[in-house]
């Protein structure tokens, strides 16, 4: 392969690579709150806050991009605290509904805010995001979640997920841990929002609708939530799949479009049916299957 065709390949797929990273970060933000058993669907709102505040800072201040990103990471985490204090008393589906409500409030706030150009959103945001920044952010998030696992806090989170009242009688301050994880997830979402805004040149309120949260949740579920990197695997798979299918249908000579969507849906369904613990559980399942076969042979 010549270097120019390699370059073509990169040019064709660099935005896919960027979105794999962004979606991975968003999937981790859902996973973070999920790791202590809380389903928060306010992640798109946190993402919106990160995107808007970073874009506004880019337009109106001379601050370096790193400072913008830091603000876009911290502000959603701060906002999540007053939201979490009342809302995290709710459980399961009630928490999900309350956080959807918050998400809609934030979205509609931006739709009606003249300062941010209402429903049209902010356009011509300078491109400041490089792909390495996206992957540095994703790597940082993975590192943090990896180190939490197996720590005193990590065990506390697992205990809360399994049986919150019992965890509390071990002296675990469940409310504080749940709030901390909501804030951490909000920080990841805000950072992803800021990076995305400065990659796609725009901030539009319709980007941060309920369907966006559903996408994040699907990444996490398809990738698997029993390990911390599962959501990233799911995001990579589901972000790359349409591109791969487009390439295949083009080679085979089929018209892209409806068929691609159909196959996309079929693959999703197959994963959920046959890999209920997500794609990230595949290596373990293959290992178990092989071992069972070896033992059957030995017997």
């Amino acid at each position, binding site marked *: 392969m010549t270097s120019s065709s390699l370059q073509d390949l990169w040019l064709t797929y660099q935005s896919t690579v960027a979105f794999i990273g962004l979606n991975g970060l968003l999937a981790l933000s859902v996973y973070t709150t999920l790791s202590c058993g809380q389903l928060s669907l306010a992640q798109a709102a946190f993402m919106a806050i990160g995107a808007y505040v970073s874009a506004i800072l880019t337009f109106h201040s001379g601050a370096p991009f790193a400072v913008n990103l830091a603000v876009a990471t911290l502000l959603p985490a701060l906002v999540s605290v007053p939201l979490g204090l009342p809302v995290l008393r709710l459980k399961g589906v009630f928490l999900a509904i309350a956080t959807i409500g918050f998400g809609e409030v934030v979205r509609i706030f931006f739709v009606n805010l003249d300062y941010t150009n209402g429903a049209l959103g902010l356009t011509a945001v300078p491109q400041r995001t490089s792909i390495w920044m996206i992957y540095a952010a994703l790597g940082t998030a993975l590192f943090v979640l990896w180190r939490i696992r197996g*720590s*005193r806090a990590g065990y506390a989170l697992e*205990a809360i997920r*399994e049986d919150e009242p*019992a965890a*509390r*009688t*071990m*002296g675990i301050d469940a409310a504080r841990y749940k709030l901390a994880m909501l804030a951490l997830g909000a920080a990841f979402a805000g950072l992803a929002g800021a990076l995305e805004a400065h990659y796609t040149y725009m901030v539009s309120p319709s980007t941060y609708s309920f369907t966006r949260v559903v996408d994040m949740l699907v990444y996490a579920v398809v990738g698997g939530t029993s390990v911390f990197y599962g959501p990233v695997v799911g995001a990579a798979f589901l972000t790359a799949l349409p591109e791969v299918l487009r390439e295949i249908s083009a080679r085979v000579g089929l018209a892209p479009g409806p068929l691609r969507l159909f196959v996309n849906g079929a693959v999703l369904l197959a994963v959920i049916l046959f890999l209920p613990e997500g794609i990230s559980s595949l290596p373990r399942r293959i290992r178990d299957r092989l071992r069972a076969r070896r033992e059957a042979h030995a017997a």
Partner: protein
Amino acid sequence: MLLSLQGVRRTFGGLAAVDGASLAVGTGEVHGLIGPNGAGKTTLLNLVSGLIPPTSGAIVLDGERIDGLASHVIAARGITRTYQNIRLFSALTAADNVLVGAHLKRNAPLWRRMAFLPSAAAEERAARAAALALLARVGMSERAFERASNLSYGEQRRVEIARALASSPRVMLLDEPTAGMNPGEVTAIADLIRGVARAGHSVLLVEHNVKLVMAVCDRITVLDFGKVIADGTPAEVGRDPAVIAAYLGGEAAA
């Protein structure tokens, strides 16, 4: 007295599950709490551990009132417990369950682990070793790395006791620790409870196995319909006509 309940009452709707109960547990004492089914024993443990607040009355630990505090605060003050319907974290191993129980004792700021400091690794090794030592104490060494859900009933109860001990509580509440155990296991639990008390932890023991209660307890409180009907040494309580009436029915006592 280390732990005392003064006129503690808890109603559910119109029903008083615990109706003005008073009792006192001394340091290093094994205090039995017995009574017929539905007498309010488990409700009383739930009140002491803060799972539910009392409707009225006072619960005092070492001179400070703890009634109405959140359950994690009460745990931090030094009261941990086991559950009648075992509540282990079933996806975790036995050892990890005990590690969760050690939450209050551990001093492990997350940033140290993030920075890969040797002190963090040393703390983790020490906590893990302590958890394994506790499992050895309840006779669960060989099964330490088994998932809790794969353990037998008796094994799960022993892991729960180890988990409750992991924070070195001042008072441990045991809710029917020998339910579903065979006689050999019951003897082992009796020895364990006595050992725990000798080590300076007080024990409030709810138990249906009267023989065990008589054998291990220093004092016994008898509840019936939420009220304390007798309180004293095992010998005193065993002679008490009100206790015999509650257990065998009114006519037998008459």
